[in-house]
């Protein structure tokens, strides 16, 4: 690994200034779990790393209107344990709990996870399902963007030169909303997922006459960005006992995906797995809806 200079700006403005001054030669350093890997492999060879560790309160989690605002530097383990987050966004909490292994989560930040923009990452799938937004700032101004528009491609985001991710706004999951996060790893339990799936919806009625009245379904890891499944509304309300329509839902999901063959599986295999996860997720939602 080539050596680099390390800067510790004390404010967001200073950090952005450093980014502008050093241009392409600079990179932001959060927890470093992905960055150090890329430095070791020589994928990135920066002259300067701009560490975000000493900017006060960049890891704070505060109530924002209708939800939570999570500071970019909040670490995944801390978020997993955060009582307000557990209540406001159980779906995100479930996704965070499955990221890599505990040593990664102990150090990795939510901001770093999003900015690294690996399509296999778990949190983005959940965040898109929750309609979360990112807050981007350049030290003078800030702008807000849905996570779905922030992630562009493999390791590419909508960040402009001299901008950084300040925080993530996660709308509160409503009372009575049911949600589920699933992932499938093809090789071993702690491996990067082959397919991820997040579902948020509502279930009404009493068992066994349950019906899914609203459903938002997102599939990740198969394409450069998480895919929000279209056309689900036409299948709603979906009665728990309507096996044919439940199958149509799984087919609707599979038909919209464009996976590629790689080491995690063939395109055919991944599409089948996505169908399995969709069926399981729906069953799980009904089960949650049936619980008192």
């Amino acid at each position, binding site marked *: *690994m*080539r*050596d*680099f*200079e*390390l800067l510790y700006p004390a404010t967001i403005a200073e950090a952005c200034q450093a980014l502008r001054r050093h241009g392409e030669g600079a990179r932001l*350093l959060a927890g*470093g*779990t992905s960055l*150090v*890997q890329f*430095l*070791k492999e020589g994928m990135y060879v920066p002259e300067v*790393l701009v*560490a975000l*560790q000493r900017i006060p309160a960049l890891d704070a989690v505060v109530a924002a209107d209708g939800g939570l605002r999570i500071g970019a530097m909040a670490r995944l*383990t801390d978020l997993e344990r955060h009582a307000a987050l557990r209540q406001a966004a159980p779906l995100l909490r479930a996704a965070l709990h499955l990221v*890599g*292994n*505990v*040593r*990664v989560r*102990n*150090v990795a930040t939510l901001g770093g996870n999003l900015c690294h923009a690996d399509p296999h990452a778990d949190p983005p799938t959940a965040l898109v399902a929750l309609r979360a937004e990112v807050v981007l700032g350049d030290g003078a101004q800030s702008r807000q963007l849905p996570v779905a528009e922030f992630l562009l491609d493999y390791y590419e985001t909508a960040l402009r030169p001299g901008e950084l991710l300040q925080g993530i706004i996660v709308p509160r999951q409503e009372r009575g909303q049911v949600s589920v996060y699933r992932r499938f790893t093809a090789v071993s*339990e*702690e491996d990067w997922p082959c397919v991820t799936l997040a579902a948020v919806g509502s279930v009404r009625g009493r068992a066994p006459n349950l019906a899914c009245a609203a459903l938002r379904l997102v599939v990740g890891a198969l394409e450069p960005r998480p895919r929000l499944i279209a056309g689900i509304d036409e299948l709603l309300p979906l009665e728990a006992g309507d096996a044919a329509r439940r199958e149509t839902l799984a087919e609707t999901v599979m038909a919209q995906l464009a996976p590629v063959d790689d080491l995690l599986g063939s395109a055919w295999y991944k599409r089948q797995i996505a169908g399995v996860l969709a069926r399981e997720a729906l069953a799980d939602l009904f089960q949650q809806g049936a619980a008192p």
Partner: protein
Amino acid sequence: MSTAQFDPARYKAEQRQSWNAASQHERDRMPEIRLTVNGRQERLTVKNSTLLVNALRDQLGLTGAREACGVGICGACTVIVNRRTVSSCLSLAVLADGAEVLTVEGLSDGDRLHPLQQAFLEAGAFQCGYCTPGFLMSGVALLATAEDPSEEEVRHFLVGNLCRCTSYQEILSAVMKMKEQASPDWLQPRGGLSARPPA
């Protein structure tokens, strides 16, 4: 692929030589960090790019943490920094400035093994032993912080430690057996086996 045998003594000598070869100018520019390792105050001069695993091994002679996969997956390099397990193969040493670090060498009290080490011994929770320091650090961190973890929680916590000799069942049973005995002060260094590199 090179067929030359890996010679640890030679590797160490080379590391030290490359360190000595750094010019005074280079060294003046290197940051000095202060950290507590296994209860001892240490001052180290490192490069910004020095990995924690290398600072521990090459500068402090603490060779329990070892780099195997180098990408955060296997857990052979697990150490505890400020009460959390980390992969020292992905940690920059400079970021440990001011930190409290616990390595496997800090677990025992002289010749008296840590209770989890003793449990590993009794359960036969290793064969070659390469993964053992990492599993011990993960086990200590889990048991010191989680209250009565279920087997599923223990499995989830240990998912990032790999054992090529597949001692998993024995490791799991050793950790489960120590649940009652564990306490938060397991994260405090004991007397320690503080190895130092030869001068």
